[in-house]
């Protein structure tokens, strides 16, 4: 194995990791926003990403809509779904602060969706094939699949938009304030329900983008969602809660860890390594490795 080691190979591994990790990143951003405002761990995020992967898949196979174009439909749909989920299921849980209940509701949603998708569309893995899905850009012996690269760019753009929204808009600032101190935010006149709904809209909207990414890059099946959201949590744990940049970076780092470990430790141990990293970060630095501590005022 080490005889095959070369700079090219390392770079290839790194690039693979970074490109795929960005998708973990946007899942993590969604989780971070929802957790930040409502302290809810939305375990259904991964399964909803798969739901949108299926949406993209069917839009393509039934209506011939190109995956990237389908974003125009998927993103608003996802944002609305987010608001609907919040409004119908989480309003009391958010107010009550009983986090176990909201965790269970999220799990219930996950379970429901997973099995619903299996019944509707079977458990067989799906993927999308378009003229460009097998296109690979090559230079210097390194191959970058086109769809992975586009997926990466999309993720970066999405993260950028979210950052701009949070920093430059009034409601975005309100979301940041509510994430820090919801009681104080209500004393400013900020309505928690509005802020929470926005967080969910963005979170699920990002899931829509991730779903389209997924559909073009990797075969997916209904049960992959759970694994994916756990990866999202790992990314969040690494990157720290409360920062969009951190979540994205956490995802990329996770992608790197996966890519490198699946090469150097072959045979399916990657999963265990990822969860081990998760446990370690969870226990020793729950606020994340990348977040600098914020002073309380």
């Amino acid at each position, binding site marked *: 194995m080490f005889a095959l080691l070369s700079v090219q190979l390392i770079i290839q591994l790194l690039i693979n990791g970074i490109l795929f990790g960005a998708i973990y990143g946007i899942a993590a951003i969604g989780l971070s926003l929802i957790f930040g405002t409502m302290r809810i*761990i939305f375990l259904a995020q991964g399964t909803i990403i798969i739901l949108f992967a299926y949406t993209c898949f069917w839009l393509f196979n039934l209506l011939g809509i190109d995956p990237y174009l389908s974003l125009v439909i998927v993103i608003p749909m996802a944002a609305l779904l987010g608001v609907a989920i919040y409004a119908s*299921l989480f309003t*009391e*849980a958010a107010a009550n602060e*009983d*986090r*176990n*209940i909201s*965790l*269970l*509701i999220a*799990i*219930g*949603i*996950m*379970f*429901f*969706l*997973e*099995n*619903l998708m299996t*019944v509707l569309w079977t458990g067989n893995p799906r993927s999308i094939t378009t003229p460009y899905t097998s296109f690979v850009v090559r230079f210097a012996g390194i191959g970058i699949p086109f769809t992975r690269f586009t997926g990466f760019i999309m993720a970066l753009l999405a993260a950028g938009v979210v950052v701009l929204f949070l920093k430059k808009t009034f409601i975005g600032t309100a979301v940041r304030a509510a994430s820090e101190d919801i009681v104080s935010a209500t004393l400013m006149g900020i309505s928690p329900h509005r802020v929470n709904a926005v967080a969910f809209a963005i979170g699920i909207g990002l899931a829509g983008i991730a779903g389209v990414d997924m559909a073009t890059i990797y075969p997916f099946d209904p049960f992959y969602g*759970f694994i994916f959201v*756990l990866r999202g*949590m790992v990314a969040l744990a690494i990157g720290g809660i409360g920062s969009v940049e951190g979540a994205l970076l956490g995802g990329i780092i996770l992608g790197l860890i996966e890519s490198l470990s699946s090469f150097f430790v072959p*045979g*399916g*141990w990657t*999963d*265990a390594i990822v*969860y*081990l990293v*998760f*446990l370690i970060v*969870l*226990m*020793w630095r*729950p606020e994340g490795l990348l977040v600098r501590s914020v002073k309380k005022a």
Partner: protein
Amino acid sequence: MKDKRPLTIIGILIVVLAIAVVPFMVDTEASFIVYFLFMTFCYITISQAWNLVGGYTGQMSMGQHAFFGLGAYTTGIIWLHNLTHTGYYFDPVTMILSGLVPVVLAIMIGIPLLSRLRGDYFALGTLGMGQIIQVIFVKGGKFTGASDGLHLPSTIYSSMRPYYWTGLILAIVSTALVYFMTQSRIGLALRAIREDETAAASHGVHVLGYKIFALGVSAFLCGLCGSLYGIYLFHINPDSVIKLDWTLYPILMCVIGGTGSVLGPIIGALFMTAVFNLADIYLVGISPIFAGILIVIVMKFMPGGLVGLTEKMAFARRKKTA
């Protein structure tokens, strides 16, 4: 009110006796009731186990399936390598060992996780642990049979009856164990920890010790049940014994039945097993979807569960007469 206790005990004994004699009254092999009750007994056992950690101590553990699976695998390994040399199929020694191995895991994992993680972080940690265990078993090579798993000789199977009665005993043991623990000072300490850890600690309660104890007992019960189920299945593989269902369904049952008492998990298990089986008959393949919908609905409208609902109704009735 003091008169109620002897009556309750007699009532319970009658019910248990009635359930115990069922196999004599029906054709055990073909009977649906026997199968239904057997599954219910298993779920009751695991639900009581979870209730001890999650309901009474307030630590939302999502790792039962790992303990359950470990129990099943331990039994499989002991049997296949004839480690205990007893030759029985329903060997109590094997079962108890299968219960103890998960306890070791519980302590090993419990110390770091319980000492540092609270609430949903702890839940996540146990989820992560469960996933790691799953990977380990898939990669275990010849020892654990990899993803195909272990096969126990099915020629040993003679009748459903021993399974049924062992299941009944497990359900009774787990219920009784949890009941007496919660009635004792241990239960008081656990509840104190659930309400306010800092306050409990300042009153001299060794918080970490009690938490690990609860997790350990829970792991033991899950392991026992895993052992029984492993023998029942004959084919022990990660997909069937270390699946998340074994964590989620018991939580669902506790939550639907009500987490505040030992009755809740029993009611929840009965109710949910009935729902699942009915759904399997009339709406094939759809039953797990119901699990999801049910969790959501119950958590949204009845966080106290069925038992909580009846309490509320009783309270309302009392208020009217007051």
